[in-house]
């Protein structure tokens, strides 16, 4: 999985009780608030998943919001992100086995569906531990590590996450 380090702008809102004459405390409040904001935002269609803030580059002059007294600080920071891309090859592990296919997860991406139709010669085998078996006795069961290709993806605004469709059609793809 390919990660990116991207510089981006953000507006951090600080409530008046956190404004301190000691500069360092204010800076800490801004950093803590930025980290919380980014953790809550989780992901966006534009940038993909927000994984970690790696550097705070600048804090600009704050602007007072007249109604609330909050102060808005425009900041610029570096963020480690992960954006899934159509056509790329990823490694993930099997999360759930269903009759019609498999759900995989890979890093921050929870929802990757590998349809039975995209598994070439694998067939569903029911049982206490359901699995997909190929004619060559290669197995896909819970926690199997799989190399797959991203066939398509969709951004789900309500869940703030991406939904991926995977395929095993291609050379050197499958359980590893």
């Amino acid at each position, binding site marked *: 999985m*390919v990660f990116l380090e991207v510089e981006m702008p953000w507006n951090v809102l600080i409530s008046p009780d956190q404004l301190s004459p000691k500069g360092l405390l204010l800076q800490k409040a801004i950093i803590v608030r930025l980290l919380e904001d980014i953790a809550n935002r989780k992901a966006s269609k534009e940038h993909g998943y*927000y*994984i970690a803030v790696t550097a705070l580059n600048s804090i600009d002059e704050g602007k007072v919001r007249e109604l609330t007294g909050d102060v808005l600080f425009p900041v610029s920071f570096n963020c480690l992100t992960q954006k899934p*891309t159509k056509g790329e090859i990823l490694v993930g592990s099997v999360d759930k086995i269903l009759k019609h296919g498999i759900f995989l997860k890979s890093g921050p991406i929870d929802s990757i569906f590998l349809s039975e139709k995209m598994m070439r010669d694998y067939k569903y085998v029911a049982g206490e531990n359901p699995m997909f078996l190929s004619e060559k006795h290669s197995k896909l069961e819970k926690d199997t590590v799989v190399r797959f290709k991203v066939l398509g993806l969709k951004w789900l605004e309500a869940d703030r996450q991406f939904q991926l469709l995977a395929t095993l059609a291609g050379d050197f793809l499958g359980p590893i």
Partner: protein
Amino acid sequence: MSGEEEENAAELKIGEEFLKAKCLMNCEVAIILDHKYEQLQQMSDDPTNQISQVFEKSLQYVKRFSRYKNPDAVRQVREVLSRYKLAEFELCVLGNLCPETVEEAIAMVPSIKNKGRIQEDDQIEKLLNDLSLIKKFE
């Protein structure tokens, strides 16, 4: 994305951000996130606030799937791969998946053949040898 052509990583038709920004491999991200994790633990009284699920899942993932663990080896991998005229995205895919044969490398990163930068198979072979040497001496 310019929007006109549909993205396809196999042909290196990827978002502009991948071409401009710095791309990172699993093993590099593992080092960064490990360090960040320690920092966050120290910084806050309640670190759970800032350690998001996305962070945790990514940390677990890169730790599990990093081929190289030793920071010196990680640096060498980037250095070796940078000698071949690869796009950042291609460099990371190769460093992550560590293909063993030329055919596998081309299947993982079809664009290395298309763009006419690495034309000869023996150059890919040399690249793969360089990578496996780093692993051997890690």
